[in-house]
Structure formats: structure tokens, C-alpha cells
């Protein structure tokens, strides 16, 4: 049923994509774009080939090597992970056989799925885009309905051009006011999840709105939407505005222009209602950092560790009441689909310029989100700023956001990381991860302990 009256953005996109099959049950929803990566892509394509099912429209299916690919400079198909290169070679062969577009290991457009899809204009406002990757919700920043699925559903999407899916409930998260200096989209996401829980968005498609969201640039919007899956939402998205269309203009797979009146319809109508509404005062937010083993275990950086599950305190080795500032760290990591775009690296470089990573840090690295981000950063000299400060500069990929490529941080390390997950063992066995903004990672790397980026910014300004 197509609803009448004022509609939310979600309902508009949903209604445009509903296919009436005249039967009951979960509806069919048309899928405009599918993106695969080598961790799960080969499995889906091989399984389809084994079942004799072709990809219905290969021109709208893309794949990239990002998860397992090595991020050391000069890489090839080899990985430190035993058997890792098979994921790469098998995905390459399966992509070729299926006739889909592949951005291979050393393709100039290679990068993390959710970084390159917007860069290339593959995701567009109003489209449905799915990928067997939970952080697909990142791409909702462009006004798309984008969500993560499993491999079986990816096969379904490629074979039929549709998914069978129950309509989710709608939620609007409104950030009123403006962020204070030194507070970022990452902090907005962590504050939301800390306040409403890692399951707080379950069953909902979440629209982010409000002054503070409108003020974010497109890349910061991606950071906010990226974390919607850590809120257990089906998707997170932001209505497209002039910034969105300006960002997409001229990108390879984007339309020649956005003059069709259709593009102006992609917003929530006045008077439309949501199943759930959350309002957060953006002006009251501080830089956030996680203290435990779920993104919901996050806190303002200048606060004391709250009481949480005993297991989390034990794993992370921080007692309730402990100050977060001053906690010694071993590793600093800037990277991932959350925070490794050019604007992230520019802010990080501006903060670290003229400083050095503390001697006590065992490993500090910056991994650009895409090969194109890497080239642009190098053209601006950001790589030199990072390496002079003591960071390693890498080729693009998911890297040590998790443990896929076989690289390890030193045993038992405590890391400060611009990534999205602080789960037990996520970055390797026994690794204790604190997630935060790139600014907080930089400030902490320089101090050797968890540090407030606002203090370093003051120091740099003097």
C-alpha cells in the first residue's frame, strides 16, 4: 500500500521501490545498486554460479578489494593472512565471469566500499543500495536508502534485482543547535548510541536531521550515517540538499545533471510523522570516547568511567569511576569507512603538524579510505606531515579496523582508533580498543595517553 498525505523521506523512497506482486507476505523492494567486497563477494558470486543463476543487471553491480587486501605500500595480491590471497583471486575471477564492474587491488579507484561509492557517484539520492557489509548505511549520507545484508540476500538482490523485506518503522534523530569546536560527527554518533543503546535503533530506518546535521559537510554526514548500524538501525540517512548535489556533480556514475524536479522531492514533508523521535542538543556534546566493549559504552572524554557490565570493565581493564583522560595507550589508528576521507585526514594533519607521536606509542598509522584520498592527501603534503610526526602512511583499505588482513597490533595493546567497533578482540586477540574521532586519536597519539583534542588545538593555535 502506498500511503497518501505527508510522507517521510523513507516512505517516499520505499514507495518508489515497492513492486506489487499481488501476493501477501513481505513485499518486494527494487534494488538499484549492489556493492560487493572480497570478504563476502566471492562467496555470493560463486554460489550463484553454482546454482546457474546469472546477475540480472551486471552494469549496476560493483565490487572492490578492501577487506583483506594488504595496506602496506607496494602491495599485490599477497596478504599476511594465511589463505587471504584466495579471497582476492577468487573475487577477481568471479567478478569477471559475472560481468560486474571490479575495482581491483591497484585500480586507481580502489578503496573502502563506502568511501569509493560516493566518490564515483555510484550511490545517489533516492536510490536503494545494498552490500553484504554492515556499514553500507554510511551511504545514506547522500540521501539514499542504503543498508547491509548477508551473502544470501546479496545473491537474491543480484539474481532478482529485488529483496524481500518487511517495512521497518521510521525514526528521526534531530540534533538541534550547533556543535562546539573540536566536537565532530563521530561524537554525535557515539553520544546517540551511549544515550539510547547499541540496540536503540532496532527495527527502524533512521533519518538524521536538525541544524547540526545540516551544517555537516557531506563527508562528516557519512561518518554519522556510518554508525547507524552500531545503533542496530536498518539504515541511517540524511535528506539531500544543495551540498549533496554539488558533491555529486560530475562524478563518474552520477547523472549529467540534477535538474529533474524529482530531486527536489527527496525530503520529509511537513506534518509527516515518525514512529519514534529522538532529539539531542548538539551544542551540549563533548568529544566522546568509548570505555568498554560496545559502542554504547561511550562517554564524554573528560568524564569518569561509568558503571557497566563487569565483563566489559574486566576486558578493558578500567574500573568504574576511573578518569578516561590520562589512560596510557600503545597504538593510534586513523582509518576505516568511518573516518578516513580527505576531510578527516586534513583535520588530523592540521592538528598533528609540528608535533610528534609520543615515544611510548608502539604503533601509529594512518590508512586513507581510498586510493583517490591517498593521492589527494599526498598532493597536499599530508602524508609528509603524518610521517614526520611518526605515523606510518599506508595504502587504502579496511586494514586494522579489524583483523582480516592478518596484521596484528602488539599483543595486549590498548588502542585509540578512529574506527567504529570496540568489541572484544575486534582489532585482534586481547586488543583493547577505544573508538573516538580522528582529532582525539591524534591528540592521544601526541600525549601517549587518552587526551582531549580541544587542548591540543589550543596549543597549536598559540
Amino acid at each position, binding site marked *: 500500500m502506498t500511503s497518501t498525505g505527508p510522507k517521510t523521506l523513507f516512505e517516499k523512497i520505499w514507495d518508489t521501490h515497492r*513492486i*506489487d*506482486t*499481488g501476493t501477501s*507476505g*513481505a513485499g*518486494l523492494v*527494487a534494488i*538499484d545498486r549492489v556493492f560487493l567486497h572480497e570478504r*563476502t563477494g566471492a*562467496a555470493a558470486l560463486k*554460489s550463484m554460479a553454482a*546454482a546457474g543463476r546469472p546477475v540480472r543487471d*551486471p*552494469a*549496476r553491480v560493483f565490487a572492490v578489494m578492501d577487506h583483506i587486501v594488504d595496506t602496506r605500500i607496494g602491495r599485490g595480491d599477497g596478504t599476511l593472512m*594465511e*589463505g587471504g590471497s*584466495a*579471497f582476492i583471486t*577468487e573475487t577477481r575471477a568471479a567478478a569477471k565471469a559475472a*560481468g560486474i*564492474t*571490479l575495482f581491483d587491488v591497484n585500480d586507481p579507484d580502489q578503496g573502502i566500499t563506502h568511501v569509493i561509492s560516493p566518490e564515483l557517484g555510484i550511490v*545517489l539520492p533516492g*536510490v536503494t543500495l545494498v552490500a*553484504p557489509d*554492515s556499514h553500507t548505511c554510511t551511504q545514506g549520507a547522500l540521501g539514499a536508502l542504503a543498508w*547491509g*545484508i*548477508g*551473502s*544470501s*540476500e546479496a545473491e*537474491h538482490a543480484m*539474481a*532478482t*534485482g529485488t529483496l*524481500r523485506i*518487511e517495512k521497518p518503522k521510521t525514526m528521526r534523530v534531530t540534533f538541534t543547535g550547533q556543535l562546539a569546536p573540536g566536537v565532530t560527527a563521530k561524537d554525535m554518533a557515539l553520544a546517540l548510541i551511549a544515550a539510547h*543503546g*547499541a*540496540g536503540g535503533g*532496532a527495527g527502524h530506518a533512521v533519518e538524521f536531521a536538525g541544524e547540526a546535521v545540516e551544517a555537516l559537510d557531506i563527508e562528516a554526514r557519512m561518518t554519522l550515517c556510518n554508525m547507524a*548500524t552500531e545503533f*542496530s538501525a536498518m539504515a541511517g540517512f540524511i535528506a539531500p540538499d544543495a551540498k549533496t548535489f554539488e558533491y555529486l556533480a560530475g562524478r563518474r*556514475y552520477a*547523472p549529467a545533471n540534477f535538474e529533474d524536479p*524529482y530531486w527536489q522531492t527527496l525530503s520529509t514533508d511537513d506534518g509527516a510523522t515518525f514512529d519514534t523521535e529522538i532529539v539531542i542538543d548538539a551544542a551540549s556534546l563533548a568529544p566522546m570516547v568509548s570505555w568498554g566493549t*560496545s559502542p554504547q559504552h561511550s562517554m564524554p572524554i573528560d568524564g569518569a568511567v561509568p558503571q557497566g*557490565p563487569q*565483563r566489559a570493565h574486566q576486558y578493558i581493564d578500567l574500573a568504574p569511576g576511573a578518569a578516561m583522560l590520562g589512560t596510557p595507550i600503545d597504538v593510534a589508528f586513523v582509518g576505516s569507512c568511518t573516518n578516513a576521507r580527505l576531510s578527516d585526514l586534513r583535520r588530523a594533519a592540521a592538528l598533528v603538524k609540528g608535533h610528534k607521536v609520543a615515544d611510548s606509542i608502539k604503533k601509529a598509522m594512518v590508512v586513507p579510505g581510498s586510493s583517490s584520498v591517498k593521492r589527494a592527501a599526498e598532493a597536499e603534503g599530508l602524508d609528509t606531515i603524518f610521517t614526520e610526526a611518526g605515523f606510518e602512511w599506508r595504502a587504502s583499505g579496511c586494514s586494522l579496523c*579489524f*583483523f*582480516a588482513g*592478518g596484521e596484528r597490533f602488539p599483543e595486549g595493546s590498548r588502542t585509540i582508533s578512529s574506527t567504529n*567497533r570496540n*568489541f572484544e*578482540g575486534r582489532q585482534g*586477540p586481547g586488543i583493547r580498543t577505544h573508538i573516538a574521532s580522528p582529532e582525539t586519536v591524534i591528540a592521544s597519539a601526541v600525549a601517549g595517553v587518552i587526551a582531549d583534542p580541544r587542548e591540543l588545538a589550543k596549543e597549536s593555535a598559540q
Partner: protein
Amino acid sequence: MTPFTTLTSVAVPILRDNVDTDAIIPSREMKSTGRTGLAEGLFAPWRYSDVAARTPDPTFELNMPEAKGGQVILGGANFGCGSSREHAVWALVEYGIRCVIAESFAPIFRANCIRNGVLPITLPRADVDALAWQEITVDLPAQMVTAGETTHSLTIEDEPRTMLLEGLDVIDLTLKALPAIEAWTDADRTARPWVYLEKTA
């Protein structure tokens, strides 16, 4: 897919909130592009005191003698959160788990369960807790979970219920609607021509 009708099993409690798919099957345990060879890596960080040596940790619930042969696990809130990896469900199935009862599920994990013949059941936390180590019967046709004298009704949408009961290949089911999909696509090409791309590579 193996149809799901009824099963009787001990309910093994892994009663933690936010059990994530990195814990269910860590990235480093996904060693091939296939869907098999995953059972040994199931819950590896919790199941083994020494992961490399595969030394069982006797304090982890699945390793306890009373868990032997268990086909049902119990979880807390937001079970299966994190990575979309379907390997988490493939590992559970290969190990022998056919049903997960939790306070709530992360959406991608839940959808992956249904695609692989694993029944995800949501019950209030107190009811989940009370099932710990009980011999329970899960009856999908009757939509009931029974433990001794206690019964709970089991809520699931019609389509997943049918898919599980009949072990349906859902792609075949959808392909039956191909004429409707094609008609929709033809109309959409006119309405939103910019969605459709020419193959370039």
C-alpha cells in the same frame, strides 16, 4: 535449506548483551571463500582458553557437559550485532545450532538466520533467563516454546515462518514474480532513467 518444524534440546545460555558477530566467528577464523569449515571457529575467543592450541575453556557455556548436543542457544539484547558476515550463522548451523532465543536481535543477523534455517525467537529477558539449561521444545507450526510446565508463544512474521517451515529457496520464490519485476523495471526506466547504467568495463 533444511526445513524447521520442531526440536527438543537443552537451551544453552550465553546470556550477554550485544553478542557481536566478531565474537561468534572472528574474522581470522573465516579462512576460505566457502560456507563451510567454520564450526571450529565458532565463539573461538570465548570457547578456547588458547585459541591457537584449541584448548577448551571449561567456563564457557558451550563447553559445559550439560551443553552437549544442544541445538538452542539463549542470548541477551541485540544478539548478533556488528558485522553482516553470514559466516556467523553458517558457523552456528555447522556446529548444530538451529534456534536462538534472545531478548532482541540485530537485524542483519536475524535475516541471515531465516535464510539458513535457524529460527530466531524474541522473548522478554526474564523468560529467556528462565529457560537456561532447561530441556525445551520449540514447535514452529504451533508457534510455541515449552519448558516443563511453562509455555511461551512464539511470534514470527508469516513469510519467514513459511520459509523456515518449508525450507524454501527464496530466490526461486521471487523469480516466480519475474513478470511483475520486469514490468516494474520497464516503467522505472522511463521514470528514473539515471538509475540504469551502461556497462563500461
